[in-house]
């Protein structure tokens, strides 16, 4: 037997607070921004912008999608704005000399830093849409239907794009196109 209150809560779960979103998803947001091309030196600032936006828009969040999906859209916009600003400044993030060597590098395992650096460089070879697709599928583990919703693109199109993105990543990693 489900009482009316429980049913109401189940149907309309309480909207999370900014703090709850931050506590649950800050590390996720950092990772998404990082692999969407925000360089380490700017990661802190761009992530602040993301959570300011979360705070501004939380009242409008209706819970129709997962918080992560909603947050991803905000990160995606922030990363896109970031890349545009970098382009305007003629500062190409891909050419960042300190990539893979953030100020907190000493606190992170070398293997992770190396992996991050290698994959980021490979991802820089992709265009924006391919990069998003690759990150969402291979790094964030979303399903294709979920990605189709986020990127507003048919699933069938995503399959072919993923294949092309994988080939490009393998090529950038210096591998033949095996496994794409």
């Amino acid at each position, binding site marked *: 037997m489900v009482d009316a209150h429980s049913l109401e809560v189940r149907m309309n779960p309480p909207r999370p607070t900014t703090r709850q979103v931050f506590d649950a998803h800050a590390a996720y947001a950092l990772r998404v921004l990082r692999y969407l091309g925000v360089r380490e030196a700017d990661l802190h600032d761009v992530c602040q912008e993301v959570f300011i936006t979360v705070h501004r828009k939380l009242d409008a969040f209706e819970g129709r999608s997962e918080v992560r999906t909603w947050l991803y859209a905000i990160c995606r916009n922030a990363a896109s704005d970031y890349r545009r600003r970098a382009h305007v400044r003629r500062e190409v993030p891909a050419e960042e000399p300190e990539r893979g060597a953030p100020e907190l590098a000493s606190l992170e395992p070398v293997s992770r830093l190396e992996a991050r650096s290698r994959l980021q460089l490979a991802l820089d070879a992709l265009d924006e849409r391919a990069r998003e697709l690759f990150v969402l599928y291979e790094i964030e583990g979303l399903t294709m239907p979920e990605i189709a919703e986020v990127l507003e693109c048919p*699933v069938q199109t995503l399959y072919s794009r993923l294949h092309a993105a994988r080939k490009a990543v393998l090529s950038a990693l210096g591998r033949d196109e095996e496994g794409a």
Partner: protein
Amino acid sequence: MSTPTDPARWTDDASLAPDDVRELVNLCRADHGTPEQVERLRAALGPVLWPIAPGGAGAGKAPVASGTTAVALGKAAALIALAGAGAAGVWFGAAHRSTRTEPAPSASAVRSTVVPSGPSSEPPVEVAPAVAAPPTSEAPRAVDAGLASAHSNHGSPSAASEATNEAWWLDQAQAELASEPGRALAATAEHRRRFPHGALVQEREVLAIEALQRLGRQAEARARAARFVSSFPDSAYREKVRSVIGNP
């Protein structure tokens, strides 16, 4: 998790990806950064986005954020008003990447030296304020000069950098809004000069609009509100701006 039709991920055993590539992607999937990075973000955002609870550290030094103001500004007030202003440092801005924890200069300390000392009937003049436009008035520079003096008196080598902090300026504006809206307006103008494309432009504009309204400069408030709505048509503050100036 995958749907039945999803191709095998590179991290799946069934994938044909080379082993070293699989390992590479696995490492990146587990790349959550460091706890220090998250805590640094929390230190920067926390005092602003989730103010200290009543009774918490610094609660006794709460800034001016009356119920009326909070209602009028809605989220802007919640965002900008620090429960522990004067005790809690707010660290926004690209210029600050350190993990400093020392307090920002208190509002009262700054007020005593930085704000033009003229009578309140002669508030700092702000000429034709516009979103993200370069400043044209002298008033913000007066504030700036005073702040530099305050920092000089402060004696801390890092104090000067505090003046470049975005949220700090808006905190000053928020603290002055109810009692000295002219000074609040000057603080927003200084914020605009320093951070024309800052992360808190919308919050600054909301504060400036209310300051103008409180100063009785209704035409300017309405004009600035109209520019705000035009510049940020999807802003969460849109209705709140309208409520401040009475639905232009």
